[in-house]
């Protein structure tokens, strides 16, 4: 009885594990194709971020429709990892070792990204534009990893500086999500306060799964701040601002670029988002920039699924990989990873729909040799989700 059981187990194991696909000569590049990979949660609590790789996918479709890159078409492999690092790693390994990926684009989330960072670095596989503003990806910098997303710390600094210097706020409270995302913002804000010789009047951590936020708001209210920095996910930020306003607790609210999609924020707060100032690194959804309008018309209207929304996550998927496309174009028709990395390093003053992107040749310990962007500007939400630009581009280095 036992032997048969074991035998069947063995046969099934061997069967399952015995596919060994062959490798390409130049990994991920053929005469007609370039293979690019990405991940993003399409399921689970983080699924709202899933629009990022979908945006990238549609952008690549558009590039292919316009002739591709140096005669090659982009083949985009995206997979769902449900924001589970173990699954991210499995998917990356499967694609890298099975299909063979030339370079990775985007990639949502801090802990999924960190799970594969060392693996990709060890194999010297280029990775452009992780969809997270965490310091972990550029500190220390890594030769093959090019970050596009402006650092959360810099953005928080810019917001707090603006509040203190321009608006003359004296009592500043910080509401942050209790994880890497929130902590990065908290650090930036505290650094800025410290440089002004001030301290936060309250620091209130929020749990991502919490649904009852009134105790947190009470905490904020007790500190009597005149500015509250809300470093949370869109749904929690919406609740905090909405309930605070209802409680007649009306300090100046400031928030993170994740919540800078004013039309959407205005909709889910039913109008309470009016007056909130956020940092932003890209354009706003109703931007008049010709390139944005072009993207909306030619990419979103043409390729996106009908339930897709022209929101910040979607076009961030385009924004994060624009430098990559620039690098691929400049690397010439004889594409190798080395040439691609050199081409990326030579990107200076590149401007797509995001902030200006600059890279320099790799230098140990120089964060900004791999952190391509450092500019941010502040915007304020007006009635009906309209946007008012408050500042010019600010360098946050």
């Amino acid at each position, binding site marked *: 009885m036992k032997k048969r059981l074991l035998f069947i187990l063995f046969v099934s194991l061997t069967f399952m594990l015995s596919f060994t696909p062959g490798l390409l000569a130049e990994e991920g590049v053929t005469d007609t194709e370039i293979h690019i990979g990405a991940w993003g949660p399409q*399921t689970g609590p983080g699924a709202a971020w899933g629009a990022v790789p979908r945006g990238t996918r549609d952008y690549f479709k558009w590039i292919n429709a316009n002739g591709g890159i140096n005669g090659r078409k982009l083949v985009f492999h995206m997979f769902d990892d449900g924001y589970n690092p173990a699954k991210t790693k499995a998917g990356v390994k499967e694609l890298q070792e099975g299909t063979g990926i030339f370079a990775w684009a985007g990639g949502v989330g801090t802990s999924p990204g960190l799970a594969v960072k060392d693996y990709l670095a060890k194999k010297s596989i280029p990775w452009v534009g992780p969809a997270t503003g965490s310091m972990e990806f550029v500190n220390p910098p890594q030769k093959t990893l090019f970050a596009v997303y402006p650092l959360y710390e810099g953005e928080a600094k810019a917001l707090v500086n603006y509040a203190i210097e321009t608006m003359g706020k004296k009592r500043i409270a910080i509401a942050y999500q209790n994880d890497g995302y929130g902590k990065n913002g908290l650090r930036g804000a505290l650094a800025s306060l410290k440089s002004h010789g001030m301290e936060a009047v309250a620091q209130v951590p929020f749990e991502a799964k919490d649904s*009852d936020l009134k105790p947190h708001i*009470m905490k904020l209210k007790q500190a009597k701040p005149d500015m509250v920095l809300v470093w949370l996910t869109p*749904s929690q930020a919406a609740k905090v601002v909405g309930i605070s306003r*209802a*409680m007649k607790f009306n300090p100046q609210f400031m928030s993170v670029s994740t919540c800078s999609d004013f039309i959407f924020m205005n909709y*889910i707060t039913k109008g309470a988002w009016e007056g909130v100032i956020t940092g932003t690194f890209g354009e706003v959804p109703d931007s008049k920039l010709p390139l944005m309008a072009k993207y909306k018309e030619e990419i979103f209207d043409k390729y996106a699924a009908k339930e897709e929304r022209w929101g910040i996550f979607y076009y961030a998927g385009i924004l994060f990989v624009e430098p990559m496309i620039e690098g691929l174009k400049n690397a010439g028709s004889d594409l190798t990873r080395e040439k691609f990395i050199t081409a990326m390093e030579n990107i200076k003053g590149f401007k797509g729909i995001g902030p200006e992107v600059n890279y320099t040749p790799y230098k140990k310990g120089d964060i900004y040799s791999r952190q391509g962007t450092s500019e941010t500007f502040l915007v304020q939400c007006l009635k009906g989700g309209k946007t008012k630009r408050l500042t010019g581009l600010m360098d946050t280095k």
Partner: protein
Amino acid sequence: MIDFIQMIVSGVATGSTYALMGLAMVIIYKTSEVPNFAQGEMALVTSYFAMMLLTTMNMSVYLAFFLSFVFAAILGAFLEFAVLRRAKEPNVLGMIVITIGIEMIILGFVSWKFGAEQKTMPFPIGPYDGFIIYDIYISKLDVLTLVSALFFMIVLFLFFKFSKLGLAMKATQQNSVAAQIVGIRTNRIMMMTWGISSLVGATAGLLISPTIMHPFMMWDPMLKGFAAAVMGGMTSLPGAVIAAYMLGIIENLFGGYISIEFKTVVAFVIIVLVLCIKPSGLFARHYIKKV
């Protein structure tokens, strides 16, 4: 002092949502001894159904809510009829696994159909409408939740105590064979219980939705409601409600005065402590098991 009162008020408001979920779970557990982990998702799908009626079909709120309640009741009855009744050799663990399975299926369908993006439901009472009395903020939506929780508690309490159907439900739980012998159609009773429970739970979901809806919005209320039901003794309707309000108030006070970081989990610590002292919860009679 104002802060203290405000915390109590907020606690009562939060507790009302827990109470509705707790009541829904108690109703099912009372008759069929199933700890229903799918309760939250049953409310979720009803909320999204109402949302669909409101936005894509442009129905009036009253009609949409009425239809949603009908939908909730049918959904509950259907799940009992199609899934729970078919279980062979049911035991508590098996039931937990089945209901978690149902939960995942519903969650999958809702996310598939409606996507993961946050939404907000149009509702005559805005989520941020409220009164301010002596500096204390009371949200209108919370008042409505409180009223519904108390309404359901009283109606269900009377229903189980005095109506024929309610008594039949009690009889089914205590001894289903004996109940069958005296002429109670236990199957039908079970179906009705699930329908009623689903309706009560759906109320909680519908009252959360005007603020923010997303596919995972019911996890926290469901777990807390379950915790309240367990603390109240799993079979006692007033027990579940009282425990729910206790949890809501304790959470708010704990968050306000002790630690905001552990606010989410303090409910579970309290549960464990309470259960150590009274293993069957606060308001249930402890039955000594026979061999």
